[in-house]
């Protein structure tokens, strides 16, 4: 069952949140094999705000899926918050997605016909959190993205920017180790984009670890560290350059 909040070991600043070692991802086999990732090494420490950039087909989505435990790498090791993900069963992966990762998707991915409040509560339901506690934390989370007033609305009644804020509230509600944002502003107008990026800035300032995938320089500029991926390899790492 889910770990209770009280006994959770805090991840201290500067501590390693995730670590990839020689990660390869191969789809298909033989002549038809596609090498999406060809050996990625990456270490992310607490409080980092990283943008992963690259053209389409560069492997950044594959990387995102592996980081998010939605997919398991063909070769190489992936450690997230001290767990060796490669060794995990499906249920353990589900638990890691629930407890350690908060997803923000390009297409928001809210569940239709469920209120904003219910959408935000969903990860807590799967985490086995009691009803009253769930409602309290979801309200808190919605408040944080400035959407308390719209808690009772369904996704169709919200603008794109508002939907993405609900999605961020949903990502935050479990207090995850890592926030994974996949092109979070890809479907938004410039005003909403600013909105969302400011929220991410605030979260980063509050010490959240954020990995953001984007192909827009404007967006990447907000991050502390920029990683460029091409042909399944990291071709540029601003942290390495700085160091």
């Amino acid at each position, binding site marked *: 069952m889910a770990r209770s909040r009280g006994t959770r070991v805090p991840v201290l600043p500067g501590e390693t949140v995730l670590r990839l070692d020689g990660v390869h991802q191969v789809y298909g086999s033989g002549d038809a094999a596609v090498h999406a990732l060809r050996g990625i090494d990456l270490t992310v420490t607490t409080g980092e705000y990283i943008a992963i950039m690259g053209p389409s087909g560069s492997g950044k989505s594959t990387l995102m*899926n592996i980081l998010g435990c*939605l997919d398991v790498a063909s070769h190489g090791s992936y450690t997230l918050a001290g767990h060796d993900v490669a060794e995990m069963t499906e249920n353990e992966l*589900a638990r890691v997605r629930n407890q350690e990762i908060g997803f923000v998707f390009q297409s928001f991915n809210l569940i239709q016909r469920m209120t904003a409040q219910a959408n935000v509560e969903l990860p807590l339901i799967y985490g086995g959190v009691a009803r009253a506690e769930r409602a309290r934390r979801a309200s808190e989370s919605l408040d944080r993205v400035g959407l308390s007033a719209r808690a009772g609305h369904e996704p169709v009644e919200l603008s794109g920017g508002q939907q993405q804020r609900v999605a961020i509230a949903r990502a935050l509600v479990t207090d995850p180790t890592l926030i994974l944002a996949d092109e979070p502003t890809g479907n938004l107008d410039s005003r909403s984009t600013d909105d969302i990026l400011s929220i991410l800035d605030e979260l980063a300032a509050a010490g959240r670890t954020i990995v953001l995938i984007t192909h827009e320089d404007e967006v990447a500029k907000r991050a502390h560290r920029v990683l460029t991926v091409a042909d399944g390899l990291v071709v540029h790492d601003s942290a390495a350059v700085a160091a």
Partner: protein
Amino acid sequence: MSPLELLRSALRGITANKLRSILTLLGVMIGVGAVILLLAVGNGSAQSIRDSISSLGTNTLTVRASGGGGFGGGAAATSTSEKQITAQTATTLESAHLGHVAAVVPQVSTSLTVSSTAASEDGVSIIGTTSGYFAVGTTAVASGEAFTDDDTASAQKVAVIGSTLATELFPTGSALGQTVQVDGTPFTIVGILKQQSSTGFTDANSVLVAPITRVQRSFTGFGSVSTLTVEATDSDSVDAAAGEIEIMLDQLLGQTADDESYTISNASDLLETQEESANTFTVLLGAVAAISLLVGGIGVTNVMLVTVTERTREIGIRKALGARRRAILGQFLTEAAALTLLGGVLGVAAALIGSRFEINGTQPIILGYSIPLALGVSVAIGVFFGSYPAARAANLRPIQALRSV
């Protein structure tokens, strides 16, 4: 997820596409309703047969000439030495003072036209018998009186008629004391039989009962009688009485147990056979209804498969948020079971309403166990027929599910 949350999400799923849910639900409703109602119809007809068994009286036996009776000439030609059961046989049996036999009543029967000045009835069954006929079984006289032993001895032209025949021949007034013509012979009506429930294809109330001597003299001739009705001393002695009658008859007719020209049947045997066939009928009806329930169940699978396909993305999102296989499985199973349970409840309601009406002459009687059974089966159908689509949903890989539009 707690059961309440599962249920809430199931209801959300069901109301998401109302028309589709209602149509699926209708299939289950018809199936469940048909099972309950058709079992009730079968049960109702079995019950009416049971009622007529008890009205028939349980302490009578019928001795009937087997085979030979119908084609007497041929039988007589092949076994000339064979003696027949006659009115005299009845008298002999009765005067033998057998321990378990209270009365032996001979009957001859034929079918003739009976007419009054007002009307004429074809194919009325004419029964020639003795006065004992009215004491045995349930054939009682309602008004007037039965003919007497003296009437039988002197072959009087008197008759007791059934209630239907009485009203048809004498639509305006009482039939008592009136004269009817039976194939040209006038009979005076001295009594009218009590109304009886019909068990076979013939109307038990369209009958004319007259002294056996008169019927034999005028219509059937003094040959064998068609049946002997034997009354046992009480209902527990029926089998003993049958044994005694058999031994006596074998002696009288010079036959052995292996080669008898007659059969003895308990009067309720026939009806028990009918009840058995009614039960078979019930099972058959239930089976037909069960097939419609099965078809309804397949409809559930179909709709759940569509639902899972439509909601692949939702499943992907739920998995990304940490839903385990079991949570997804539970969600879709609950949805299917809630759908079929709802259909089941409506089916029960429909059956309860339907059972208030008489169906093809039978008043349906709902079998107590059929309601919880049908509801249980409808939930089981939801779980069974929903399990394949639900497993498909639960086994989706999160990235594939998320990629779907």
